[in-house]
């Protein structure tokens, strides 16, 4: 563009240039245009696309890595949705990996399967258990990478919500830049989605997008996105209380009293109805067809009646379906001390729902965990109601909900920590206190994902990526908040540094000791306990900061 602008003046100045210019004017214009286009596409100003492209390329490089049984789970779902009628989707049980996500995810798989048939028809056969050709692998991996476009867009929207007031002069010190790196290059998402294999990327994209919409005061859109998200994967129910209360308090009530408390007469019934309508319509769209089929089947009973809605009923889901990896669980307050002799062999690697009797501590019933979770969530929800602090307060409440359910919930998978880590990134670039909580939470949370990858070739990848993310996040946030007090006190520093020796012991020392055969679970146990301490600490610290923060009205006065 610069070259094109310079051209006329250049001609005016030098009459000599005209003669050759005549012949090459077309060439000049075209050359300049193409170069400008190339420069625009990859230019220095466009750092966001460079970051996104960079991480996409890294994801492509991860294609040949190890993948877990989730790969087969999703292949099976592709096959089920492609080759069976809708009424059979939730009944099909040829494979042990039955379809157990809400209907939108089933439709998503259905849509994918129509692309998959151009790659390899064989992967769409329900009876082809554990089928994995190179084309299947490519298709599945690329489907994850491609659907991550939504995540990238959501991150882009989230970056707009960050205020750039504190922006340093340098690009790498701007909160927007740091936030987009923290989200796009998130270690947990990379290894869970692109090595272990799952579709969390676009789901978290939906969540971040809905959060961004709430930040932009587009509440209806945010609610719609979250309702859709719930029908993709029910794990997001954990954070639903935050959404419900926030929308009710800050959207349905249009005004506050000067001291920040609620003004009851400002209630808008129209707004509440519109929200209710959205939730109802989305649910009808998702569950409706299956409900209708169920009624038909009830009217004309078939020999094998199996309540399909068992699988999608949210409450049952909440209690039953959560996949457990036994010792991998990160239960902070109810550490499962298991007797090694009683662990079924298959359970170490399988992802099926299994129940265990705790041998040392008393067994915890689902109901008890539910009550615990609700108790833990309640104060934060109360805070959101009585001390509304705008979208940031909502975000804190959301993170607290996610963390509380992670700590107290029943059969929580360690991957669920991402539910807290990703939204926390948004907070971390805003305030030094939040940054310190974020760093503790992220580092320990990510470290707790290490047991997901246990094969030797992936060992360097997970260590390198973890180091990459941790060094970057700590150093960049330190630079961002260098004028304030240090992010960590000595105890936190000591704790975080302890992760290094722990990793060395678990991966490099323990396999050569004689305990390996007798107590094979010790590394997992140590990792669990160590990380649980950090996560509980971060949860506690965040709770304290939420409860002690003055309401927004007072801070404005000060």
């Amino acid at each position, binding site marked *: 563009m610069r070259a094109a602008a310079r051209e006329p003046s250049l001609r005016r100045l030098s009459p000599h240039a005209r003669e050759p210019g005549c012949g090459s004017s077309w060439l000049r214009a075209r050359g300049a245009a193409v170069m400008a286009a190339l420069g625009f596409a*990859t230019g*220095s100003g466009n750092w966001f696309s460079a970051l996104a492209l960079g991480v996409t390329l890294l994801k492509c490089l991860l294609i040949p890595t190890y993948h877990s049984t989730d790969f087969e789970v999703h292949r099976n779902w592709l096959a089920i949705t492609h080759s069976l009628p809708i009424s059979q989707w939730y009944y099909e049980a040829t494979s042990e990996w039955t379809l157990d996500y809400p209907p939108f995810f089933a439709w998503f798989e259905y849509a994918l399967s129509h692309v998959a048939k151009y790659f390899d028809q064989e992967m769409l056969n329900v009876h082809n258990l554990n089928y994995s050709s190179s084309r299947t692998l490519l298709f599945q991996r690329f489907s994850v990478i491609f659907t991550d476009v939504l995540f990238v867009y959501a991150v882009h929207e989230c970056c707009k919500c960050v205020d750039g007031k504190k922006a340093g002069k340098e690009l790498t010190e701007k909160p927007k830049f740091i936030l987009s790196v923290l989200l796009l290059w998130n270690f947990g998402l990379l290894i869970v989605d692109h090595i272990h294999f799952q579709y969390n990327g676009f789901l978290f994209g939906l969540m971040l997008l809905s959060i961004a919409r709430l930040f932009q005061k587009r509440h209806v859109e945010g609610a719609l996105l979250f309702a859709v998200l719930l029908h993709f994967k029910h794990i997001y129910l954990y954070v639903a209380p935050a959404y419900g209360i926030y929308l009710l308090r800050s959207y349905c009530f249009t005004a506050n009293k000067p001291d920040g408390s609620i003004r009851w007469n400002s209630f808008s019934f129209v707004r509440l109805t519109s929200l209710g309508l959205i939730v109802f319509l989305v649910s009808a769209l998702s569950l409706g067809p299956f409900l209708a089929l169920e009624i038909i089947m009830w009217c004309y009973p078939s020999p094998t009646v199996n309540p399909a809605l068992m699988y999608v009923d949210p409450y049952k889901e909440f209690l039953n379906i959560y996949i457990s990896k036994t010792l991998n669980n990160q239960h902070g307050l109810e550490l499962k001390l298991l007797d090694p002799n009683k662990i079924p062999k298959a359970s170490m690697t399988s992802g099926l729902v299994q129940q265990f009797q705790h041998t040392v501590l008393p067994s915890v019933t689902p109901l008890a965990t539910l009550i615990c979770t609700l108790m833990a969530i309640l104060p934060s929800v109360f805070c959101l109601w009585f001390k509304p602090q705008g979208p940031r307060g909502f975000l804190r409440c959301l993170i607290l909900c996610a963390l509380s359910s992670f700590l107290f919930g029943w059969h929580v998978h360690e991957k669920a920590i991402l539910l807290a880590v990703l939204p926390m990134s948004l907070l971390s670039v805003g305030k030094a206190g939040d940054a310190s909580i974020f760093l503790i939470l992220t580092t320990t949370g990510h470290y707790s994902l290490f047991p997901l990858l246990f094969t030797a*070739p992936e060992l360097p990848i997970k260590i*390198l990526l973890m180091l990459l993310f941790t060094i970057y996040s700590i150093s960049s946030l330190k630079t961002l908040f260098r004028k304030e007090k240090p992010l960590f006190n000595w105890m936190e520093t000591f704790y975080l540094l302890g992760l290094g020796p722990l990793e060395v012991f678990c991966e490099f020392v323990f396999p050569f000791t004689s305990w390996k055969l007798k107590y094979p679970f010790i590394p997992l146990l140590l990792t669990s306990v160590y990380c649980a301490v950090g996560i509980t600490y971060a949860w506690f610290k965040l709770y304290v900061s939420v409860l002690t923060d003055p309401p927004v009205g007072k801070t404005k006065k000060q």
Partner: protein
Amino acid sequence: MEKWHLMATVVLIGLTVRWTVSLNSYSGAGKPPMFGDYEAQRHWQEITFNLPVEQWYFNSSDNNLQYWGLDYPPLTAYHSLLCAYVAKFINPDWIALHSSRGYESQAHKLFMRTTVLIADLLIYIPAVVLYCCCLKEISTKKKIANALCILLYPGLILIDYGHFQYNSVSLGFALWGVLGVSCDWDLLGSLAFCLAINYKQMELYHSLPFFCFLLGKCFKKGLKGKGFVLLIKLACTVVACFILCWLPFFTEREQLLQVLRRLFPVDRGLFEWIYRKMDKVANIWCSFSIFLKIKDILPRHIQIVISFCFTFLSLLPACIKLTLQPSPKGFRFTLVSCALSFFLFSFQVHEKSILLVSLPVCLVLSEIPFMSTWFLLVSTFSMLPLLLKDELLMPSVVTTMAFFIACAVSFSIFEKTSEEELQLKSFSISVRKYLPCFTFLPRIIQYLFLISVISMVLLTLITVTLEPPQKLPDLFSVLVCFVSCLNFLFFLVYFNIIIMWDSKNGRNQKKIN
């Protein structure tokens, strides 16, 4: 350095990319009876571990030289021996004499890949980081960006971690040499460079600029005073280093000759060796054989003389200039042009030898980002047939794109195509004395870049998707070689122009010191 953490991030990105590439296939995986370079390296471990030093380079019942006989200098052999000791500790089957031939397993692959990573981490990567930190006149951010681009150079990553070789060791030593010589630690620099030569004889491509630069330095200091002392010191260092490396082979004259014969197999013919492997090299002789079969027309000794003359003539001007006006900047450019001359004209070139040109080009990345990026892309492209044979298409495309994006973003190369930024200012001014309308050079270069990139992309697509016609099974790989060769010839001219028209004022001469 105040931004060490960003540098650490960059290094970690480089390491991650390296390791992820190494998860892919290697040369000759599951292809008996000869396998590939991976098996060659494993075989050398077997030979050096099980046989006494005297037999390493000799054909015997235990050491069949036809099957990947050792044909690299002693340091490679010592390195193999070191790796063999580790292998013995982990699993003795990997290096058992005879019975381990063609041994392949996941664990062994992991072991071999780890040895490359460790060598890289110890030698090449520190040299790159240090080199970028020593660059002057550019901001810290640019230094880090520069390090990122050099570490992401796809050619080296793909050959070392995909195809399987230890180029990072020899190139790393050469880089330490460049670093030492540019920073006026001449003895350390020449020591490092001697190690490089003793690791891989191909490093001789770089030897002439080193020699000329050091000689020029001695001249500059005055041959009668300090310069002479320096010269003597340098000579002693080089001789001592060589003697140390070759010590076990000094027992007999025959030993020494045999090693040399293995290192420089002159009797193999102009590209007979290459034909045997069915590979094509993007040098002059291979490309011109499309039109003219030099190999059949001329006897072998004339071929050697011709190739020698061409090489010598093409690198003479740059070397003379460097000797007369030694400067770190001129040194780096001369390294490029000499290595390129050797690659294009010399005898018995391997397509992987382009890495020897790419290394010095990486060093001038911050000075002429546009041209360097272009060259590095072409150099990776020229190895396409080799990479395709090793089933490395996916990592090649991905790493090349990553490298391109890294360069484009960190140097904004498309805005740096003016005469000044292409370092063609003085050349254009001197041409304009005779041809006043000579103002279109940058635009021509932009156009050539577009044509070159488009042709590379198209050829890659064609090679990947289409089957070559029955009559010409090598059509695509020959085309790839031909296109790359044309590009390289253009670059040879370009780099020579830069060297010859390098402005004599001292402003540019203190980039590194």
